């Protein structure tokens, strides 16, 4: 991991090209990028990248595709700032600049292997988790049951809906959805994400839970998971912070003594339960 070549610049991004861009929700665009070097990005599920537009700036963005899907890597960007706003103005063939991948990964090759998997995602929390879901589906026999719970604020904010059929049709996969506030087109359940949890049957002896969502979601979901008798080390979550530099220097993403950009963004719950600022 340690870079000691004094001529390597940890802040210099490399060029990549927009392969595909399309609106996904009123706030979010889907992007597919390809490194100009022709190399694979080399990430693992759960990691993020720093995406630059020269003159606008740089922002940390989760990688949404699995490394099992070669050639390009995907992101979903919510238009909430300068860089994300500029990204939304890009078209196919435009250039961006990338640093990374950074951070820890969902334990797809370790703790998750052979286990039942319970993915619990709120809103754009599904974005990094989709990388793990794809990875699991592409290595389907390596894992047990897959349960995906997805909650969006409104039906319009649901993500990756065109892939849900593919996910559901995979062997032994359950996908349940809810929205906080229904509209006229929605016939599914209404309610916060925890209302879906009694609907799944969890074998606490062989389940790993993966959680990603807005900060408010974690403690409610974790309370429910502990009621399932899951141990703290069976729960993994991804923390959102401002990972400004990505290399553990700038201080912005620090949570007490840990740097989310290097020690995270994916944490085992048992490792951060005692860290005051984490949840």
């Amino acid at each position: 991991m340690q870079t000691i070549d004094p001529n390597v610049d940890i802040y210099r991004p490399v060029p990549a090209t927009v392969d595909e861009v399309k609106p996904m929700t009123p706030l979010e665009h889907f992007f597919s990028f390809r490194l100009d070097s022709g190399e694979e990005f080399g990430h693992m599920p759960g990691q993020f990248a720093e995406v630059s537009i020269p003159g606008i700036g740089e922002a940390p963005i989760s990688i949404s595709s699995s490394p099992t899907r070669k050639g390009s890597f995907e992101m979903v960007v919510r238009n909430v700032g300068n860089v994300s706003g500029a990204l939304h103005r890009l078209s196919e063939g435009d250039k961006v600049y990338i640093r990374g991948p950074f951070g820890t990964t969902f334990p797809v090759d370790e703790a998750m292997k052979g286990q039942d998997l319970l993915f619990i995602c709120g809103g754009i929390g599904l974005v990094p988790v989709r990388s793990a879901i794809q990875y699991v589906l592409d290595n389907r026999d390596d894992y047990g049951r897959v349960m995906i719970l997805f909650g969006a604020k409104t039906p319009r904010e649901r993500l990756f809906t065109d892939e849900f059929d593919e996910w559901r049709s995979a062997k032994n996969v359950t996908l349940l959805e809810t929205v906080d506030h229904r509209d006229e087109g929605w016939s599914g359940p209404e309610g916060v994400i925890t209302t879906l949890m009694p609907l799944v049957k969890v074998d606490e002896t062989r389940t790993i839970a993966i959680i990603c969502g807005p900060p408010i979601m974690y403690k409610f979901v974790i309370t429910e998971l502990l009621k399932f008798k899951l141990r703290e080390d069976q729960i993994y979550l991804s923390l959102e912070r401002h990972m400004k530099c990505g290399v553990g220097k700038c201080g912005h993403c620090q949570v007490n003594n840990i740097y989310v950009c290097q020690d995270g963004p994916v944490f085992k719950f048992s490792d951060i339960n005692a860290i005051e600022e984490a949840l």
Partner: protein
Amino acid sequence: MPIKKLDKAAFDTWVEACIKKQRVYGVQAKGDRFAFGPLARAADLRLDYDVTLLPPKKYFQPPCETLLTFDRDKGFESVFEDEPFVVFGVHPYDMVAILQTDKLFADGQYDAHYMKRREQATIVVSDVQTASPEVFAGCMGTATIKDGFDILVTDIEGDYLVDIRTKKGEALAKAIKNAPDADDISLKLRKLLWADNTELLQKHMLDVRPDILPDLLGRSYDHPIWEEKAERCYSCGSCNLVCPTCYCFDVRDDVDWTLQKGERRRVWDGCLLSEFAAVAGGHNFRRHRADRYRHRYYRKGKYIPEKIGEIACVGCGRCITACTANIANPVEVYNSLVHERK
């Protein structure tokens, strides 16, 4: 290398020779205070200063520093410092802070921008001649320094002892002509001065040994002092700005008038500023002043020590002077944690 002894005239001649050869920054008077700045002549150098307004970190991590240049069509190019320079008159406590920051920028991911500046720098440390009103370096073990510098100069009764320790120091000291080796009496006086300085640089008295601070903080997360002090905090970030061990930064792009080219710059940031831990979309993970105030103390007294094995407060006292709300005295805070245990 033997320690040299220079009288005032020989010392000034040496400084002049250094200035002729390369960029030299040194401590000079600024109004009724002192500051590091480009040194034009030896007579401006004020090694009798008490403390500078800003620490010398500005030469290794400039307040605004170009990391990269960019062209919107061609991408990014790295910019590195490539010209040697000298910093004259760094106090021991500030040198300790520089050595700590070196570790933090080099460890893990290697920050070549910072490290190349450090490589280009020759640092002349000067033993303290005047104690500043708020200094407590004596309590922090940083009133004197044993190594890590290129050259150490010590004023002994109007003469200077010049203690040269590194290759860079030797190169700078080449301009010293015909100076005698330091005599035993001068060396003894230097030892006495070190002992005196440890006593004198304690304008505030820490009631515990600094090495217990990580443990003390470990037990004090919910202590009422964080709220009490932060209630008066303006979130101005002055304590961050003047701190020799603060190095958090922001990065921003500046475009030139063509809108085609520009620079990506690193600028100082501060964890006391209200938006420091905010993310896009508006959520602020350290929204309360007390959370930000406490975080700074924990960085200095616990988190960084756990990483590098040293307390990241060197007792310069600049935060005490800079804080307009008068809440930034670390000794006062630490002593309260010791005596008002909850």
